[in-house]
């Protein structure tokens, strides 16, 4: 089975976010970048499916030179091939999805994985867009997956329930927490990943249709008050919630 995984490098979820002086991007100095946490589930699932069905796992990342780190992490986990789509700059979501779809299009992948969202721009968009642009079916935020020769069943969660889909291959799946438990890269894997060739593809410049006007900090919450200690403080808390906050 020919499997591809879309991955992205993002700030560590522990990172404190500082707005850059241009108010368009974050200040990336002192920020530790890692493989997007949801992409770890995607890479893991690709590796599990490869174990079951055989074949090859290709990881693909679109970005600047830093994107290579996400590819190396994925190779260290066990991916076979890595492709770096070099960001020509100025792409918005549509341009990114279009570039990825172009790279994937003629390679005959049976199964494509992506994380359900990148934890930087939180768009939850690229997976669904790529599938639609390629004209293949998809299921997003999947927590259970069963792949057979020419079809798959995927379960996803919605608010208050679950839905299960059956779709033919080729198909695209975006991974949600719960799908699997991502492995840690072994020392041997890390050493091997360092030596692997990464294929480079020049991304296509596609004019953006959306423009970032500003990036700023969210409003600061005014400081709260400690009502008291232990069970004795409960009546006063309830009074404040009723009379001051008016939320009970």
């Amino acid at each position, binding site marked *: 089975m020919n499997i591809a995984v879309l991955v992205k490098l993002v700030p560590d979820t522990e990172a404190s976010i500082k707005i850059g002086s241009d108010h368009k991007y974050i200040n990336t100095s002192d920020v530790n970048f890692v493989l997007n946490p949801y992409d770890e589930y995607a890479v893991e699932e690709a590796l599990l499916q490869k174990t079951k069905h055989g074949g090859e796992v290709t990881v693909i990342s679109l970005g600047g030179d830093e994107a290579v780190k996400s590819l190396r992490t994925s190779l260290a986990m066990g991916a076979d091939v890595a492709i770096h789509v070099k960001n020509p700059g100025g792409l918005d979501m549509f341009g990114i999805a279009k570039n990825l779809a172009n790279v994937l299009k003629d390679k005959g992948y049976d199964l494509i994985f992506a994380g359900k969202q990148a934890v930087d721009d939180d768009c939850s968009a*690229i997976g669904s867009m790529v599938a639609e*642009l390629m004209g293949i079916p998809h299921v997003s935020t999947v927590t259970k997956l069963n792949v057979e020769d020419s079809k798959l069943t995927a379960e996803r969660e919605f608010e*208050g329930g679950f839905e299960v*889909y059956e779709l033919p291959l080729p198909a695209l799946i975006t991974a949600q927490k719960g799908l699997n438990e991502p492995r840690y890269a072994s020392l041997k894997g890390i050493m091997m990943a360092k030596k692997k060739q990464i294929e480079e593809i020049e991304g296509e410049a596609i004019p953006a249709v959306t423009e970032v006007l500003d990036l700023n900090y969210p409003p600061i919450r005014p400081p709260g008050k400690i009502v008291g200690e*232990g069970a004795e403080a409960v009546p006063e808390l309830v009074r404040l919630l009723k009379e001051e906050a008016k939320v009970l």
Partner: protein
Amino acid sequence: MDILVYLEKRGNNLRTAGFEAVTAARKLADVSGGKLIALLAGSNLEGFTADAEKYGADQILLAEDQALEGYTPDGHRAAIVAAMEKTSAKLVLMAATALGRDLAPTVAANLNAALLPDCISIEVIEGRLTVTRPVYAGRAIMTLATNSWPAVVSLRPKAFTAVVRDGGKAEIAKLDVQTDIKTKLIETRFEAGGKLDVTEADIIVAGGRGMKSNENFKLIEDISSLLNGAVGASRPVVDSEWRPHSEQIGQTGKVVGPTLYFAVGISGAIQHLAGMRSSKVVVAINKDPDAPIFKSADYGIVGDAMEVLPALIEALK
């Protein structure tokens, strides 16, 4: 500018978040002098038209088709594309629910449209559609604009309020949709007892490691049910399998914005704060007076959850 709003039907209900989108669209339509068209897809739709009308739709399109009952990305994308062809709408709005977060990008890709996902405000400024949206799990707010049409926007649930409009009358029309659904929906399961999801609850009572055990969450459940709220959980509690992932609040869980949020035995890791910072009023109960959660709380009680919660249950009864 004519606006199309997709309304999400789940079982025998329309999601409130869809009405929030209708209210937001109504404002935009009024400012720009456009028409508000609501779209429903599935079966037995006629019973829902009164709701769409109540919140201000001028026209309601019914894509009545058994093949569209239950969500499929390709089926419901086809319904929206058909509605765009039939009307002069330039803007598609929907709620950024689990469904909307999948459908909006699917539609945008199909229509070659601008996508502005998970927005907390929406305006037209000097002819440009301008939105704000939280990024980096709410640690920054991005202002994004487009003047490319059509555009597809999803709105974060609870960031907007659904407002009933009196005296509105909507024209109702059928919409034929050519479907070629490859993602076959083979099963839908609703959680037992119609459990309220954290993203839809006005009150959330969330517990963390300070609850000490799975069994002690009974106290959290009791308070939650006294207040008609939902139970939330921090990541360590979900990772320990005390609670399901559907209840996890934070960067790798759900982002919520209730009126009242109780954080009980939750220290307040940056990833958790990201998920609940837009709550209106936050109450923290924690035995560690230095827990970071107190900095993000409006009211705090320093104390052991096992002592404070039983007293709270008595007080609320």
